[in-house]
Structure formats: C-alpha cells, structure tokens
C-alpha cells in the first residue's frame, strides 16, 4: 500500500491487478506491532500458525535496557577453595554494581561424609589382625580424597588389596564406630550400614562368577553352540523314530512322547557335553511299578514317556486275551529261560524284544495247549480210526517249524521293529521252537510219513 503512496499512484483499485492488491491489503492488516515490517516479511509475509514472538516479552526487554549493562573482567573468589586464589572472569555488571554472592559453581562442591575415628576408638573397637593402623588410616584418607570410589582407591592403595577387602574394612570400621558412638543400639539400627552389613564372601563369589562369564572367549562360545546344536539334532532324530514306533501300538494311552522324550535319553547318547538341558530334563523314572493314577496323570501332563510303564501297559494289553494262569505260565517260562520279568535296562530295543518274547511265549503256550488238545483228540481218534487226518497237516506245518532255534525270535524281534503285528505273528509261529514237546513232534512226522 505504501509503495503506491511513494510512487504517487492512485489508490483506487484497477480491475486488472486485483489479486495482487488483495494480498498487500492482507499484509498491511496483519503486520503486528513490535517487529519491523522487513523482519516480518522474512517469514514470507504471512502470520505463523503459532505466535512465535510473544509481544509481552518484547516489552520487558525494552524495560530492562533502560539500565546500563556492561561486561567487565573482574576477579572473583570461590568459596569452594581453601586458599584465596583470585581468578578473573567476565562479569555482567548492571549499573556499575558487580553482582554479589558466592561463585555460582561453588554449590557443586559436594563430598561424602566419612567418619573419622580417634586413636582411642581405634584401640578399643577397630583392631583387626589383617590390617595395621597405618593401612587403615591410609584407606580412610584415600576414601575421603576419592569420595568412596573404591575401584580408584584400590588402584592407588600402596599394598595390593582387592576392592572387596577394602570395602569390607571400610564398612566394618564405619559400622563399628557407629554402633560404638551411638547412645543406644536403637538409634542407629535404621542406618543402612547397620541394617545390612557388607557381605564379603557374597561379593567375592559374585565377582568370581562374573569373571568366569567374561573370560569365555568367542572360541569357546562357538564350540558350546556347536555341541548344543549336535545334541538337539540327535534328540530330534530320536523323537522321529520314537513317534514312528508309537503309531504302531494303538494301546498306548500316554502317547505324549514328543518334545521331552529326550529327557529319558540315558547315558548312551553320543553327545559328550554336560549341557544343562539334559540334566534338567532327566526325570528319574521310578523303577517301582507302584504308579498310581496321580503320578501317571502328572507325568502325562509333563508328557514324559516312561518306558517301563509303557512296557507294562503293552504287556497287559497283549496278554489281556489270556487268563491269569496263562500269564503266570508265561512268566514261569521267562524265568526258566533266565529272562527278567522286567527288563533291567529298558531301552527301546530291549523293550521291543521283551514284548516280542512275551508274545511268542504266549503263542507258544497257546499252541502247546492246542497241541495237547489235538493230541488228546488224535489219541482218541487213533482208537477210533486213522482216517481223520485233515487236522494234522496243520500240526505238521507247525510241528516242523517248531524245531527252529529258539534264539531266533530275539534276532527277529530286533529286525522287525517297524512291521505289522500280523506279519510278525505268522513267521513267529513258524519259528517257535519249544523244548518240551519234542516228543510230540515225532508223532506228527510219523503220521505224515505214514500218510505220504
């Protein structure tokens, strides 16, 4: 607007430059007081969203400037100093009057309160076989100079003592003095050093542990990591194998045999390290058969798979078809053979073969019983006529193959880990070789011969 004034142009707005005119109008309206127009124009000629300059503050500054401010190079004293050294610095002098008062930084001169003991107090309370008076005095002097920075004190101490020893001596001396000086024990019981005395042994132990942590180099860390990875791999492969076997035995109820199955891996694992994982996971499986429901339930919760228990279940399942007497006979046979009723070392292989064995014995006993029946029949028929032979071929077949060596089942059992029940039973029957009915073998053969 005023540009037009200067130029002497008419104030009436011309139709063409109407946009331009509206802007200068706004500008002149909004120019605030207190700043010059040029400065305001620096902001782009528009008002800022938030008022950046407080008008009230500007008024205050003008008032202050009425006084005479000079800066002078004056000396000052510092109450934090014990001598009267006078240094010089720039001082803001108002109206010729230098500021009074202490040096503004003197208030930062803080120090720790260290108890000072007298000689008699030392004689009475503070004598310690490990420390001479000289050393104790020196310690306290250093404590005061370095404000209880024990790391630095230990560094500057004449004789080499560890930080814990120094701390121990300092805190015990302070504690003893406090207690000795107090009029009654109740007064000082609130003081932190009285309530919780410095525990040297704990500190030493803590530092030892920390130094062990810090002394493990990257090399060792890498080795440890490798070992752990290896162990994990092994246990995972075992889990895979275990779960494959598991799926064959539908009777097993606590088939929660994943994850923590590694817990039972006994000492025959290949991993050499004493890693904590194994130790913590190792639940000592109770060898006693007295497992009540609560234990099994809790175990099921932990998903721990206990082989002996599983074995027993499997045995029960397998022998459920037979009666009590039969089970007794099976067990009798086992004992005759010199096999423990419960395997001593219940590894997977051993348990599998044990089960195998039991089943085969069961089958054997069944067959023996059937044989006896048939023999009885046969003998009764013999009195009758020889014509009734259709039942014998079965006998023959069975009988011939009964001669096979007894230890076969064991080896078979070992091989046939993943096969189906039916498959196993069939060859099992063939490979049975009882010792008792040796004589009865002959008769079916004879019958065969005579038939042929």
């Amino acid at each position, binding site marked *: 607007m005023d540009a037009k004034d200067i130029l002497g142009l008419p104030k009436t707005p011309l139709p063409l430059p109407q946009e331009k005119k509206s802007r200068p109008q706004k500008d002149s309206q909004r120019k605030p007081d207190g700043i010059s127009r040029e400065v305001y124009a620096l902001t782009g000629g528009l008002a800022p969203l938030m008022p950046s300059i407080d008008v009230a503050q500007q008024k205050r500054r003008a008032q202050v400037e009425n006084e005479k401010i000079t800066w002078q190079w004056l000396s000052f004293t*510092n109450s*934090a*100093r014990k*001598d*009267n*050294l006078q*240094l*010089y*610095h*720039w001082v803001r002098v108002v109206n010729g009057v230098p500021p009074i008062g202490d*040096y*503004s*930084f*003197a208030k*930062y*001169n803080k120090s720790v309160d260290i108890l000072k003991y007298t000689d008699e107090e030392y004689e009475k309370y503070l004598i310690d076989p490990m420390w001479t008076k000289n050393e104790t005095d020196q310690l306290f002097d250093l404590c005061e*100079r*370095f404000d209880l*920075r024990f*790391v*630095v004190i*230990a*560094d*500057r101490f004449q004789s*080499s003592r560890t*930080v814990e020893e120094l701390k121990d001596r300092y805190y015990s001396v302070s504690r003893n003095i406090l207690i000795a000086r107090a009029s009654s024990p109740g007064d000082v019981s609130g003081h932190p050093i009285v309530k919780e005395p410095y525990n040297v042994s704990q500190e030493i132990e803590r*530092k030892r542990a*920390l*130094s062990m*942590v*810090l*002394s*493990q*180099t*990257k090399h060792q*860390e890498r080795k440890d990591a490798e070992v752990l990875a290896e162990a994990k791999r092994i246990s995972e492969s075992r889990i895979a194998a275990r779960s494959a076997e598991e799926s064959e035995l539908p009777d097993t109820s606590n088939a929660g045999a994943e994850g923590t199955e590694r817990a039972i891996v006994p000492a025959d694992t290949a991993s050499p390290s004493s890693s904590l994982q194994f130790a913590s996971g190792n639940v000592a499986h109770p060898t006693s058969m007295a497992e009540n429901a609560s234990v099994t339930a809790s175990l099921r919760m932990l998903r721990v798979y206990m082989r002996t228990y599983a074995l027993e279940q499997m045995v029960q399942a397998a022998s459920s078809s037979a009666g009590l007497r039969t089970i007794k006979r099976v067990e009798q046979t086992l004992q005759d053979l010199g096999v423990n009723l419960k395997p001593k070392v219940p590894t997977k292989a051993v348990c599998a073969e044990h089960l195998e064995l039991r089943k085969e014995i069961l089958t054997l006993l069944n067959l023996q019983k059937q044989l006896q029946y048939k023999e009885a029949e046969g003998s009764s028929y013999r009195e009758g006529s020889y014509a009734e032979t259709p039942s014998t071929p079965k006998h023959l077949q069975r009988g011939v193959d009964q001669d096979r060596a007894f230890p076969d089942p064991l080896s078979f059992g070992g091989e046939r880990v993943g096969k189906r029940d039916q498959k196993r039973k069939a060859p099992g029957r063939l490979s049975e070789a009882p010792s008792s009915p040796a004589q009865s073998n002959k008769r079916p053969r004879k019958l065969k011969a005579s038939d042929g």
Partner: protein
Amino acid sequence: MYGGDEVSAIVIDLGSHTCKAGYAGEDAPKAVFPSVVGSIDQMDVDDSDNLEKDSGPVLDSKNIVRPFDSEKSKGKRKLYVGSQALGYRRDHMEVLSPIRDGVVADWDIVESIWDHAFRDCLLIDPKEHPMLLAEPSSNSQQQREKTAELMFDKYQVPALFLAKNAVLTSFASGRATSLVVDSGGGSTTIAPVHDGYVLQKAVQSSPIGGEFLTDCLMKSLESKGFTVKPRYSFKRKEIRPGEFQTVDLDLPNTTESYKLYSQRVIASDIKECVCRAPDTPYDESAYSNIPMTSYELPDGQTIEIGADRFKIPDVLFNPSLVQTIPGMESFEETAASVRGLPQMVIESINKCDVDIRRELFSSILLSGGTASMQQLKERLEKDLLEESPQAARVKVLASGNATERRFSVWIGGSILASLGSFQQMWFSKSEYEEHGASYIQRKCP
C-alpha cells in the same frame, strides 16, 4: 554454555612429537609445532651463520601464527624452537628432543619450548593466566614436582593443574569411564579411566609409535634403493618451462641428526598419505601382487610403494613384523617383548576390577596422531571382537575428524579448564608456597 566459566586459562600439551598450546575454551590449539629443538653449541660456531641465506625451500609451516625465530641463549647453547626455525638449516645444528623413553630428560629444552609457546605463538604473559598442562598417564612424582617448580618459580603462574592425557581424552568425548588407546608419536599407551581417574596399575605402554613406524618406512625404502633426500640438500632449477633439474648441494657442516630429522619429516608425510591399516594380519604372499601407489618426493623423484603400505601399519598389531624389515635389527630385542595392540587392550582390561570391564569394553577411545590412520579403528574392532569375551559388547570409538583425533588431549584440557566446577581444583601459587611442590600429588590426582 552450561557449566562453563572462562578464566582465560592456557592449555599446553607437550607430546613426544608435537607440542600443542592454546587458550582454554577454544576448539583447537593455536600453536602446534614440533617438540624438538635445534641447538647450536656456542663454542663451535659464530652467530654469523644466521646471515647465510640458503635456498632450502620452506617446509609447510604447522605453525599458524606469524613466523619468528625464538633464540634462547642458555649459557653455551643456542636453541631454536618452532617449525620455522627448525626448517632453516644451520651449520652444526643438532636436533634434540627433551623426552627420552617417555620421561623428560632435559628441562632446559622444555623451558625453551614453553617460552616459544608463550611469547612467540600465543603472545601472553604467563603471570596472568592459570596453566593446565597435560602429562603422560604414568608420570613419576619427581617429574611432576619439577614441572610445578619450573612453572611457579620461573613463570610465576597464578595457578597450575596437571592432568593426565587419558583423562583429558576421555573428557573430550564426554565420558567419565573409558579405555583410552593413545598412539602418538613416541609411544602407544593404553590407559583405563574410571570416573575421571586413571587406573595406574592397569596402564600398558609400548614404544611403538608414529616415529617408530616412520623409521620402519624409511629403512624399508632405503633397502629398496630409494633415497629420501632432505629438502635442504638440493635445489631445483627450471631449465625449460615445466621441466626441473635437481642439483645436489653439498653442505658439509650439516649434522647427522638434522639430516635424519629432515628425512623423517618427508617419510612421515609419505606414511600419512599412503599407509593404511590392513583388514587382516599382514601376509607376505597375500600382498605381493598389490597394485603400487606412486608418491612424488620433493626432489622430483617418484617412488612406488606397494606392500609397505600395509606392512608398516601392521607393525602396530604384530610387532614381530619388524624383523622382516631390513635395517631394523637393532629394534629386534625391544620388539620381541612388545605385544600387539589388541593384546595390550585385553591385558589392560583384565587388570581392572571385574565390575567395570564391561563398560570399558564398550567405550574404547582412539586418540593420537597415529590413530588417525585409515582403517585403524575397523581393524582394531575386528581383532578385539575375536579375542574378547562373548558377554561383553566391544565398541571402538574415534571422532570422525582427523584433527580432533590428533588434538583430543588438548581439546579435553580446553573443556576441563573452562568448566565452572573445575575452578576450585587449581593448584594455586599460595598453596605451592605453603605446602611445597609435593602437595601436587594431592591436588592433581
């Protein structure tokens, strides 16, 4: 400035290679000049040598202030201080260093250096300014007392403080606790600082510093057949435009030490330009096919430097490499007992209390002229990561600016002397008169 209060203190850092002096509160020293002096024994020579105007070209002046020869007649000796004075060749001028094996041996020379700093470079009267001096991290009581005596008796300073180099470097980076790796001209020192105090029992030092590396480089070049001619010993004439011919000058009265000094100046320039710390430990066969870098000597000769670029800095990490450099056999015994930089760092930290080790590992500071070598920080960090414990996080810090690394001690002093809460810690003249020089041990921990 929060916490700041200027009392116009002067900060002086007398290193083994350069002396730095300036006002506290500024961010760089005003006076930087070599801390060696030229000395002419008065008995041998007349003063008329000064009139001889020889054509020795002027060295790059490290001195930013106006040139002025400082002559100090000290009985029988005339001492010349400052890079300008040293750059001018004089007959029979020996180059002497006041510091031998890390301790001050010749106090006259130190005086002359201080005089030069005060009167010629900074133009101050020591009576008016408190002085902050930087001292080596393992300085003996006797040295400190002598310093105090000299300052108070001769220069009449109002107040004095002696601060350790490592502490000042630590303050320059804003930390109270750190491990300072200071590799300067004369030696490399590793000092842990805890809460502003140096832990003296854990300080490690090795004689391998910038000057040692310069010597190695010189010997290596000589063995390859390149001679480094000092600047005063030749004159270049322009025969045709753009073409120069070098004429050797015969100056029989030049001392051996001066010649060596001039050669070292050139060699250290080569080292600063060309050398780099290798990423892996130096292996003769691996670096045999490295492309060569060329460097033009002042006399016009161009030399090619290949494997030496990496071999020389690797001496810091593996001192036994010195044995492979022909001509350095005299240092073999010392080099055998010296360990490399990463090993010294680990040793130093292991001598400290267990509680602070983690903090020291995570704040390792580099300072000193040699520390501004390229790739040094990365190489040190890599080596330390290998040898340090898993639980600790290793971090090597160095200010990005090479000037800051060189002057970090001085900068720390500048910060310290201008703090308001430091003003109570000065060792004043009245305290000196009252308690004697030994009181400095108490006042300047």
